[in-house]
């Protein structure tokens, strides 16, 4: 559905994106993560046919974004970062106008349908200029969904929404992502974590990581971390844990718990549990610690993306 190879874009002397390669399949939600100025919006603008790349190729819904830009634009729904809207228009009229430009049959019915999807039916006759930021965001989303696009490209889709709306919009995206291709950029790492099948981490115009969030965690950690908690005094707990062969690093926390690491691949938790009980402790908790996407993100982008 989306296939990008060698995509490069220069703004004058500045290279915004450099030799990007990735793809996204039908029925997949791909997250695009990266700090500000990393090249997310530039990539999305190229994929929507807004601007041509300096070099490389992008195929969206089977069409080349440069050679067959109109065909691509017919099949892509796009929500830009700063939702551009005609503030002097009524919500319904605006969506109808966009629908007419896309030659949608029975446009009035379809507009009602998408307004219902984004929960704005009761504001259909209000002026866009009078809507809150969150509502405008939803009008933008309605516009992107209007023509039932094969590919949906969303630049920060939940920004400015209140928590309730965020849940609704994510649910909407999740449903769309079951049948179509969704590429979304976000600053909210937990959003990527619970919405996306796969994430692309981009920094300084280059993709520094591309995988499922689980695989990224495993790959970056190289080791698994586990927290142990026992009842009562645990002064000698680190020594107990260290007795197990294969435990690499043990650390005591101020709350009395102990954290240890072992090489991923062989789960040492049963051995550690046995040892703790053998040494007379009452085992309360043995909890594996995942690496949060925040940590992954900082790990990959913090040090110019060199540290992996």
């Amino acid at each position, binding site marked *: 559905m989306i296939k990008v190879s060698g995509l490069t874009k220069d*703004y004058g002397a500045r290279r915004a994106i450099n030799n990007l390669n990735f793809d996204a399949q039908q029925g997949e939600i791909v997250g695009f993560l990266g700090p500000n100025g990393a090249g997310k919006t530039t990539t999305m*603008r190229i994929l*929507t*046919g*807004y*601007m*041509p790349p300096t070099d490389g190729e992008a195929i969206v819904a089977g069409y080349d974004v440069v050679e067959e830009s*109109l*065909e691509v*634009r*017919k099949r*892509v729904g*796009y929500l*830009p970062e*700063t939702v*551009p*809207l*005609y*503030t*002097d228009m009524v919500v319904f009229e605006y969506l109808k*106008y*966009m629908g*007419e*430009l*896309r*030659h949608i049959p029975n446009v009035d019915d379809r507009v009602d349908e998408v307004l219902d999807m984004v929960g704005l039916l009761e504001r259909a006759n209000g002026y866009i200029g009078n809507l809150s930021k969150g509502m405008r965001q939803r009008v933008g989303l309605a*516009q992107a969904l209007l023509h039932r696009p094969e590919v949906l490209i969303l630049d920060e889709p939940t920004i400015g929404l209140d928590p309730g709306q965020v849940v609704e919009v994510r649910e909407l995206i999740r449903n769309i992502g079951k049948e179509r291709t969704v590429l979304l950029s976000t600053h909210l790492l937990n959003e990527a974590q619970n919405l996306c099948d796969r994430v692309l981490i981009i920094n300084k115009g280059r993709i520094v990581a591309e995988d499922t969030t689980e695989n990224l965690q495993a790959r970056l950690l190289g080791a698994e971390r586990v927290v142990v908690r026992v009842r009562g005094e645990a002064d000698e707990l680190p020594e107990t844990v260290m007795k197990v062969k294969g435990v690499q690093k043990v650390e005591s926390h101020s709350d009395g718990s102990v954290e240890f690491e072992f090489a991923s691949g062989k789960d040492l938790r049963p051995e550690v549990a046995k040892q703790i009980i053998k040494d007379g402790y009452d085992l309360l908790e043995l909890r594996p610690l995942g690496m949060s996407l925040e940590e992954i993100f900082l790990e990959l982008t913090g040090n110019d993306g060199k540290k992996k």
Partner: protein
Amino acid sequence: MKNIWTIAKREYDNYFNSPLAYVVAFAILLPLGIYFSLILYVTAQNSFMGGGSAPDSTPINWLFVFLMVFLSPALTMRLLSDEARMGTLELMLTAPIRDFELVAGKWLGAMLFVLSIALMTLVFPIVLENLVSPGIDWKLMISSYIGLVLICAAMLAIGVGISAIFTNQFAAYFVTLGLFFFLWFMISLPANYLQEAGQVLNYLSLSYHFSQNLNSGSMTLGGITYYLSLTALGLFVGTTAIEIRRWR
């Protein structure tokens, strides 16, 4: 073609939401009405004295066009510059419409608005037709209105073209106004002092073909071609400016 019409329809409706359009309509129709009354008054005075000639409304159309030099840039200044300023250009450029369709749609919307005002001015020849015996010269009138439509089409196309270059609507207004001033006055000033070259300069002047030919009843091919070429040029400049925005 359908996209051009869709965009034109929205722009046309949009004019009625903005006070500026009413100001422009008022600034055209009021002076025209006063001028028309004056023409009637002077003609009546002359005929009492037993002289003068039958009035026609070609001076009214000349004034319409002259006022458009100042007012048409106000109608076109925000058409594309505002889309760029507000970011809605991104929306248009990612919709399945050609850049030319966007520019032509904006132009057609402005054109329809001006045509609506022009339609109202038809009241003047109709009144004259009833006052003057044996009636006015309709062939002259038709030629004059064709000229008016053509010159307005050219001015609006240039305005839209310049609006596509700027993000600030006032910059678009003043550059368009400056260009019209040059094409209307400056270019024909030295023409009086030059022989053959003067002819060429006159030929390039915005007013020449309208004042000398179309508004005088002669529908010259040169005049029609001149205004149609300017219209095409304006739309071409607009389309190119949008394409350049994509590449930047």
